[in-house]
């Protein structure tokens, strides 16, 4: 083609992209941490024999996982205030991404829990531990090791979902990129650089997770 690449506009606004990346990472970290807590509780609820715990958990996971996150983002930002809950745009996005992460992580954690032999719980019971102590000292640490490989891809896609925050004007990475686009229309160049930033970040996340996985691997 006779299109000549010109990155000048992108480099001029590179600071904006980096600031956007930092915000994206911040959103992802906070949301995933909150989501992990939700996910853990929900995963145990999903496994519970008690329908009062299991049913709402299943409903939550089914609904959230089948909705496009954009709809949730718009709901939290525009409809919740009409119901008396007013959060600023960053908080409302974090709320949504946490709830969204929670549903995904719950499924990941549940798979991790399923692979823990029942005998370990019984061994814990037999030495007099309570169920809560068993969950904390035995089940959770083992589950965490079990899920690390699949956790990595979930975390990466949740990180990529922070791009949806652009829709409510949170100045994260995608927002910053679009801002360059509307100014310069150097769309191809902007997305090339932006996707390189996303890919590099995702690689770092994957690498970090693999590092943790190796560190926590049990000697055998």
């Amino acid at each position, binding site marked *: 083609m006779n*299109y000549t690449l010109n990155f000048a506009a992108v480099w001029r606004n590179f600071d904006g992209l980096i600031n956007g990346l930092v915000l994206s990472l911040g959103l992802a970290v906070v949301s995933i941490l909150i989501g992990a807590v939700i996910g853990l509780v929900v995963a145990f609820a999903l496994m519970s024999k008690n329908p009062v715990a299991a049913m709402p958990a299943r409903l939550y996971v089914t609904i959230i996982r*089948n*909705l*496009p996150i954009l*709809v949730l983002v*718009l709901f939290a930002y*525009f409809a919740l205030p009409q119901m008396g809950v007013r959060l600023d745009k960053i908080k409302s996005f974090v709320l949504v991404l946490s709830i969204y992460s929670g549903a995904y992580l719950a499924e990941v954690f549940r798979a991790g829990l399923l692979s823990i032999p029942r005998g370990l719980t019984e061994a814990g019971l037999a030495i007099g531990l309570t169920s809560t102590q068993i969950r904390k000292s035995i089940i959770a640490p083992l589950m965490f090791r079990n899920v690390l490989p699949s956790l990595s891809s979930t975390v990466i896609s949740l990180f990529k979902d922070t791009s949806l925050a652009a829709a409510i004007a949170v100045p994260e990475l995608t927002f910053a990129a679009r801002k360059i686009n509307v100014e310069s229309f150097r769309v191809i160049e902007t997305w090339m650089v932006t996707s390189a930033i*996303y890919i590099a*970040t995702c690689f770092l996340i*994957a690498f970090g997770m693999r590092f943790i996985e190796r560190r926590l691997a049990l000697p055998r």
Partner: protein
Amino acid sequence: MSQSFLDQLWIARFVILNGLGMTVSISILSIIAGSVLGIFVGLALAYGKWPLRLVVRAYTDIIRGTPVLVLVLASYYISAAAGLDLKPFSAGVLALAIFCSSHVGEIVRGALQAISKGQTEAAKAIGLTFGQTFTSVLWPQAMRQCLPAWVNTAAEMVKASTLLSVIGVAELLLRTQEIISRNFMSLQFYFLAGALYFVVNFAIERFGKYVERKTALPS
């Protein structure tokens, strides 16, 4: 604009159905193409010689690290740059299929590697070639193992199809936005769209469960 939401909905009914139809066709096409490609990706990852494995691993890692939006834009513009003049629909489906293939590839690899080596050896021992072993012994087992994760990917594809609105494919989200830009009832119509996406994905999930039950091995 004194009309109610229901009036507007009635006026827009065909447009919405149209968009829904488009969303479903995009999803089906990209899931099918992506899955076929993904099976080869998975095969290469599980059984390829190391140079091939390296290339395919780079492919999946890069694709999975890129937001789908960026893939969609790249497919549309870079294909043009490469002299391949794809219409937005084909470019979008191509992007989603590539995205899908990287995920399916990982799923297939995982499933293949979970099959015990003894299966391959037993097949070899009765004289099957690798091709026969794969089609008769490995794939039928891997497929069952893949199914739940594959269904999740399919649902992700439906959600990702929203991003084709950016290159002007008239799928459900763009159709919704068009309606909103006429009557400005954004909340109502976004949630209608949300509900429709939910219905589609829920149907996929149910279907997946059904197939899973149907193909479960007795024990």
